């Protein structure tokens, strides 16, 4: 099996150039109000999507979004699809819609995934979601589990230039909200058909 891992965030300069191409295309082809076109610049969209990983002190608050091309294109599409309304409202609705989609889909997936893992692996993944994974910790994980996590991670350098692996948004935010430090799943339910979902 050949695996192609998608969802990595480009370096800032590339992210801006890619966002510019995508937003300019949308501005040319959509019929949204001029005020929206004026407000929704590439820099503005990146600012909306840019993760703010605070790894300097205390528990991190992992981001729900990242300025990766597919998210930029989706957000631009949501905003470009609006026909009427003030620009700030259109942007707010688009962001809410994006976050709802990310959360609703990731919730189910993460809940099932966590139910399949044992407690020690859930502790590892909680640590990864909240603090990132240093190379030293990564080497202590089983090879299979480390490989599995790699499909969902991207390296990020902290302010000291030390690289750590972080879960791709929105998984860090979703999983850190579902687990505690002991690896206990905080809420899950099954519907009448036995399907697992987050509480």
């Amino acid at each position: 099996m050949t695996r192609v891992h998608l969802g990595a965030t480009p370096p800032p300069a590339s992210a801006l150039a890619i966002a510019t191409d995508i937003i300019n295309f949308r501005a040319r082809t959509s019929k949204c109000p001029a005020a929206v076109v004026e407000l929704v610049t590439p820099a503005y969209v990146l600012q909306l999507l840019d993760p703010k990983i605070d790894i300097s002190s205390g528990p991190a608050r992992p981001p729900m979004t990242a300025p990766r091309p597919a998210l930029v294109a989706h957000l631009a599409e949501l905003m470009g699809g609006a026909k009427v309304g003030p620009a700030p409202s259109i942007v707010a609705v688009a962001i809410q819609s994006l976050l709802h989609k990310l959360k609703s889909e990731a919730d189910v997936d993460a809940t099932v995934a966590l139910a399949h893992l044992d407690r020690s692996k859930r502790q590892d993944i909680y640590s990864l979601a909240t603090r990132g994974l240093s190379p030293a910790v990564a080497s202590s994980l089983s090879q299979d589990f480390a490989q599995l996590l790699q499909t969902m991670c991207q390296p990020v350098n902290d302010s000291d230039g030390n690289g750590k692996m972080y879960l791709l948004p929105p998984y860090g935010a979703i999983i850190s909200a579902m687990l505690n430090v002991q690896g206990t799943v905080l809420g899950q339910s099954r519907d009448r058909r036995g399907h697992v979902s987050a509480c």
Partner: protein
Amino acid sequence: MLPSAPLALLLRDSCPQHVLPIRTVFSSTAETTSSGLPLEAVVRVNGGQWNPFVVPRSGAATRGTLLEALVNSKLFGVKLRDVALDECKTLVLQSGATGKKPTAEEEASAVELEGAETLEQLVTNANITPTNGQLWIRVLLPTAVFPPLPMPIHFKKTSLRDATGECFHVADLSGGPFFLEDLNYQKLVAWALDHPALDQYRFLALTGPIKSGKPAILTRVLPGMLAAQHAVAGGPKLVFFHFAFLLNEGPEEAALSMADSAAALARRCGVTEIVIPTTGNVARAALPRIMEELASRISDAGGELIILLDEVQAPILAAPTPAAAALFASTLKQINSICRHNARIAITGSGMLSLLNTLRTVPPNGMHYGTQ
């Protein structure tokens, strides 16, 4: 309409001397009916085996009634069910078979039964001599008609750098520019090239979080890249089977839907002969065989099946138990195992964490005991 007289009488009045053996055969093999006599024949449908078949109402048997009789028979019905019968060819071998089955030369002497012409009229008009009292009839299914290929997609290198420091590649899709990192681009190209030495590339899994471009790659980029490759290198005509599993649909319902879609594609392409199970559990068990059959029929007709499965995580997430999820995952693995020699497969699904986890934990015997 042919007069409803016994065939022997008709032949006595209209046939030349050398077709007399037919008269003997016809009158010795069945009772006279008001509409003609049953006729012994040996029939082959497409590339199948030659098998004896009694043609009912032979006196009035036209192309249409003969095909309908074959559809209603257990032996030939499977191959002819849901086929556009009006597009089938019905050929009668002029010289029959000198051996157990006709040679290529003997098959080449076939005469087509067309329109309202009856078998008797054809026998008379074409001076057909049955062998050992039997007519040899060949039915050819409609030629496969594959859907047109999508528009080719060409990527070009950009000066932008990805997270690994390599360049991005960009293509113009209808929805706007589409960017791919270099490593991912190279992997997709390797899959599209399908180098024989790179057998492992025949199964491609697109992994990543929600909104990372997976469906766009599966439904537009890969078909476009393959179409571009086909335009340059030729080879078998590519036939895309794109199927998206529905969210909240469990493994059995999902298998049934997929089997139904596969059969629908087979009908569209004119490569039928796929029997669809009627219950989900049977469908799940039969899914690898169904996909293999579809891939084989398309391959026999000069094509190559490209299986594109989207939202593969859905049946796994909706499975009532981990064991059911693992069973579905093992079904996917089986599809890959038995189809890889004549089909390529790409899968994706939002949030592959649990999907990969399940795929990984499927033991060889397909049983799953969980990890809790």
